[in-house]
């Protein structure tokens, strides 16, 4: 055995409680696998917020429509990165497309991802921006002129007929996009929910809980980005848009909270043989991340804040501040949710008689720094996307660099 590995195991062994099997001492799905469902959830949530405008005609949210789409794209591009880093050999990932395995839920991810990226997000963004892209490419200078020209595929058709056609296509794609977004994140929940040997994961509610927590985190992220980007551009935050988004966030948090509570009560009432070790797990290993961060800070506190906002007529500045605090708390809570699912599910022994512990690496490929880089990367990509596809001002062509 490699000496460093022996040292690591010896260190972990001291923190093992009760009896566990030898292959359970080290946790294999590390922080990168926590980051993966978190990122995917943000994609699905941001897209569902965008679809509110097109499918359900929620006019107030219009200012964030394009921002939501670009956010979803930026995060979707990075979403498979933690998996590729975790598995190693990223060049082999391509094989899942060439040798499809219909019996493996994990192998089907490639197709779910490709469908969502190529046929939903990229197409919708292309059709939404096409008219503007043509206008920009006519007015701009090199290099943006050529970037936009290439993206339009050198088409210059902005006739009323073509624009009407684009609008219809966008609507159709959004309608296909909603079940696709549900599929994308429901799929992640499905992966965990279908591990029948693991009682912490194995639950039919898992895909639905994942989905609603995804919607919560996605909406919260777009609110956060909107509240940061708009003042930086020296513009005024549209309060009716912000209130409406916060209102959707509020309902999503309530549904998410109820679902998780339902899951919790159901487990307690069902009281399967695993309940004792799960109780130990929750009390000994997940107390801070589950009760304090996920439930108290990530759900009850933001819910309380939003109830207060709905009950009392606060002025705009205070509302903004409270929304800002809430969405940050919600992000923290949802990240903690992913942590509790992924890491928590590996901390107890399949013998139901012992608990292990997770020691996060700092520098390694599965370490904290890699995870932070993966978490920051979507924001850099988003910054680039905002340069190429400026979402501000719906019709006016952009004349100078933003």
């Amino acid at each position, binding site marked *: 055995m490699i000496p460093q590995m022996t040292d690591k195991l010896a260190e972990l062994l001291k923190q093992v409680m009760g009896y566990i099997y030898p292959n359970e001492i080290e946790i294999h799905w590390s922080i990168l696998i926590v980051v993966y469902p978190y990122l995917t959830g943000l994609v699905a949530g941001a897209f569902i917020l965008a679809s509110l405008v097109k499918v359900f005609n929620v006019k107030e949210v219009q200012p964030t429509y394009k921002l939501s789409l670009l956010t979803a794209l930026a995060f979707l591009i990075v979403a498979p990165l933690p998996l590729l880093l975790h598995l190693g050999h990223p060049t082999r990932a391509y094989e899942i497309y060439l040798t499809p395995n219909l019996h493996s839920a994990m192998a089907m991810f490639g197709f779910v991802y490709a469908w969502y990226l190529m046929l939903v997000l990229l197409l919708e963004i292309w059709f939404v921006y*096409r008219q503007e892209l043509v206008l920009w490419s006519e007015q701009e200078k090199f290099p943006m002129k050529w970037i936009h020209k290439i993206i339009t*595929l050198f*088409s210059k*058709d902005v006739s009323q007929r073509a624009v009407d056609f684009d609008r219809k296509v966008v609507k159709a794609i959004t309608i296909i996009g909603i079940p696709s977004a549900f599929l994308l994140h429901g799929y992640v929940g499905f992966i965990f929910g279908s591990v029948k040997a693991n009682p912490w994961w194995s639950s039919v509610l898992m895909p639905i809980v994942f989905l609603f927590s995804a919607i919560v985190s996605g909406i919260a992220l777009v609110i956060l980005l909107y509240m940061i980007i708009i003042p930086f551009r020296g513009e005024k935050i549209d309060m009716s848009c912000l209130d409406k988004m916060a209102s959707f966030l509020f309902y999503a948090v309530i549904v998410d909270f109820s679902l998780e509570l339902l899951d919790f009560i159901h487990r307690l009432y069902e009281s399967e043989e695993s309940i004792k070790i799960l109780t130990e797990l929750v009390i000994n290993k997940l107390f801070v991340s589950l009760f304090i961060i996920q439930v108290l800070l990530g759900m009850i506190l933001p819910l309380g804040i939003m109830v207060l906002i709905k009950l009392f007529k606060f002025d705009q500045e205070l509302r903004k501040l409270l929304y800002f605090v809430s969405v940050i708390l919600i992000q923290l809570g949802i990240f903690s949710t992913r942590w509790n699912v992924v890491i928590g599910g590996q901390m107890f022994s399949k*013998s139901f008689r012992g608990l292990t512990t997770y020691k996060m690496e700092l520098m390694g490929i599965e370490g904290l720094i890699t995870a932070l880089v993966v978490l920051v990367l979507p924001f850099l990509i988003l910054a680039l996307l905002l340069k190429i596809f400026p979402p501000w001002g719906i019709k006016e062509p952009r004349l100078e660099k933003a």
Partner: protein
Amino acid sequence: MKNLLPKLPEHIFRLFLVFLVFLGVILLVRFFIPNSFREHKVQIASTVEREKAREIKFAGTSACAVCHEEQYNIKKNGYHKNLSCETCHGPAQGHTENPTEIKPPAPRDRKFCPVCHAYNASRPIGFPQINPVAHNPLQPCITCHEPHDPKPPETPRECKACHGEFERTKEVSPHVLLKCTTCHVTPALHKVTPWSVRPSKPTTREFCGRCHGQESTVAKTAKVDMASHGEKYVCWQCHYPHAPEVR
């Protein structure tokens, strides 16, 4: 079809073209990557080499049996027959190569045996387990147990050999003079398979009443009116029989 096609705006055809090119690239890559790239032989070969290069540490039981025939014969019929010699004596490849210089260790203290035989709830029922603190303190295990054919030297005759805590509690209580068998009927098999054959426990109020009822003739015991005292409750719901309270 011909009527439908002109209705689509021209940029849609460009988009289709991009998709076609994309699909074409995928197929081309599929076609151009030679199958030898997908072979696992190279990886397997290097794994085999890596494993072969590792130092051999364990000699195996059959190597021990060549010289240590006596111990081998004792062990092969005993409870430890499924353990390798090197489980206790450590890796012995060096010893087989240089028997005089390198001697494998033999664990002779009380630390080693409890690795397997200390009580742990997750061990199978019937597996011999002891409490290392209470089980013949300070004596090395091998004073009583032959490690190559371990058997209990004899079945303990007194309950306190296993139930020391109850015994010590009872010794300072008013029940000190009572034998365990006064209250517990203990089948002989309990000493052989303690987990599957268990002693009985008193289940009725009348049982305690034999000494503690008002009509009882047993001298110097606390007496109560069984009809009114404690109503429907069984005695041990309020009184701990191994240390009943003293007035």
